[in-house]
């Protein structure tokens, strides 16, 4: 039913439809597993859809092809959105998503590259994906290879110091083949990022470290596509895309609420959320 293996044409209305499918499924996954991170899943969905169906040069039939673009999901706790996106893109069967976090499933709460095709890095503890992305981008530079590396981080995640080590080294090594996308929804587990530990002025911080920075609406497919398709922004500088997002995007009662970081929807909440996300009602 869901076979979009050849859907990487970046067609915008198509992206909107795919994103709704992923949002609905990720919420069902969290509801079934009674565990997960729906706020971040919904926040990151439009970024993931834009990448996998319009930007990344990847082939689900050859997930370890040496010349593939690398996408590293540093915010590994948003595995619901990542798995639904990978399945929809054809990396593994859509039907397998019902196994999310079930015993012996390869759909662990956090992604595992040794078991699941399409996963580039085992993430979960925050601040790990960014250094790995720097290493991947360096590998391409050393080998003069044309493939690109993208990494998606949460915003609260940037409180981990390892990211700033990575930010320094990417600029030092002039990795203009590396793009970090910050899912800037402004909320972390406990509260607003600016209340817990201030991140702003975030664009200026990246610029001060030597990065070329663009800010976009992280739910605007056209803006995301145009921006992510325009790298390198400046030759010799790594690319930072600060995607302004809404945590819980697409469901009115989940949007912009810290308590939905890892809240599991009840049956009633799931039904209401699916309706808002355009689920067809059958008589």
């Amino acid at each position, binding site marked *: 039913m869901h076979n979009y293996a050849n859907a990487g044409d970046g067609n915008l209305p198509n992206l909107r439809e795919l994103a709704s499918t992923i949002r609905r499924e990720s919420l069902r996954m969290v509801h079934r597993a009674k565990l997960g991170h729906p706020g971040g899943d919904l926040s990151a969905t439009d970024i993931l859809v834009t990448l996998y169906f319009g930007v990344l040069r990847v082939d689900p039939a050859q997930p370890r092809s040496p010349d593939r673009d690398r996408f590293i999901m540093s915010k590994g706790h948003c595995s619901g959105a990542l798995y639904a996106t990978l399945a929809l893109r054809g990396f593994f069967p859509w039907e397998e998503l019902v196994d999310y976090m079930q015993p012996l499933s390869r759909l662990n709460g956090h992604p595992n590259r040794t078991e699941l095709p399409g996963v580039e890095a085992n993430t979960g503890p925050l601040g790990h994906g960014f250094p790995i992305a720097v*290493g991947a981008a360096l590998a391409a530079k050393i080998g003069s290879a044309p493939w690109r590396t993208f990494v998606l981080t949460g915003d609260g995640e940037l409180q981990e110091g*390892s990211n700033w080590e990575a930010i*320094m080294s990417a600029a030092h090594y002039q990795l203009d083949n590396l793009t970090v996308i910050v899912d800037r929804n402004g909320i972390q587990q406990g509260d607003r990022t600016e209340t817990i530990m201030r991140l702003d002025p975030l664009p200026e911080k990246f610029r001060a470290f030597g990065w070329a920075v663009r800010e976009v609406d992280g739910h605007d497919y056209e803006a995301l596509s145009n921006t992510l398709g325009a790298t390198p922004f400046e030759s010799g500088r790594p690319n930072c895309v600060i995607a302004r997002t809404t945590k819980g995007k697409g469901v009115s009662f989940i949007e912009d609420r810290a308590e939905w970081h890892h809240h599991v929807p009840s049956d009633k909440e799931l039904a209401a959320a699916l309706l808002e996300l355009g689920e067809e009602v059958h008589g």
Partner: protein
Amino acid sequence: MVEKFDCREAFAATLEDLAAQDERVVAVVNDAVGSTKLGKFYKRFPCRFVNVGIAEQNMVGVGAGLANGGKIPFVCGASCFLTGRALEQIKVDAAYSRANVKLCGMSSGLAYGQLGPTHHSIEDMAWTRAIANLTVIVPADPNETAQAVRVAAEYDGPVFLRLSRTPVPEVHGPDYRFHIGVAPVLRQGTDVTLIANGTMVSRALEAATLLAADGVSARVVNMSSIQPLDRDAILDAAEATRAIVTVEEHSIHGGLGGAVAEVTATACPVPMRILGIPATFAPTGTAEWLFEYFELTPQGIQTAALQLLGARVQQ
């Protein structure tokens, strides 16, 4: 006087050879160019020498990313910082991910003697061998160091090489062949087995000579491969000699002695002594002085073996 060697020379020379043969080989360091002896590597292969600065977490992550991109990274730094600062990256980015990363912990154990306990690395064997998927090697001499570097490069998966700067004599002949998970018997014996690794192997051999004068026949085993462990060599020793003394430049908790005891306690219990550094932060002193202080000497090993056998030191 027996000639002694700084195994970092063998390490660096081998890595240069490998890099000349295989363009996938990359060195990653945390500004530790001199202490890794990789200055010549840098001169010969500047494009394959990645200095991330003083940033160990990033260093290990960068290593995992380089491996993802098809390289064979040797990630090198003082073992105290590499393992202590970046342990979660070692666990997740290297081991759990089965990334083809070679972690090289330089100047392990008490090598930085006078710099103090901040720079001693006497927990690294315990930390790393507790991590699944991670091969842990502690070479004993230049020959074994060179071979371990080559084997690590050929092996597809994460490896931790625990290296030292403290000079050691050669303990293996030119025909010795290192294999992951195989512990060579360096001297046969029937009364007690001395199991050591790294800098302690030559001391165990000297202790065996002293013990022979006491009429005690000591077997000596080099347990350079800590993970996977050579279970058969341990059980052979336990059954044949009925007594084991382990010797390591490491805490007595969770390292070589612990690994051996886990095998004997469950499969062939025999009397044991575990020699190493007790649960203490070492006082100020050179590595050699600290070896004396903690009785990690041929005489110290001899005494422990004789006590274990219920005999008395002949003096």
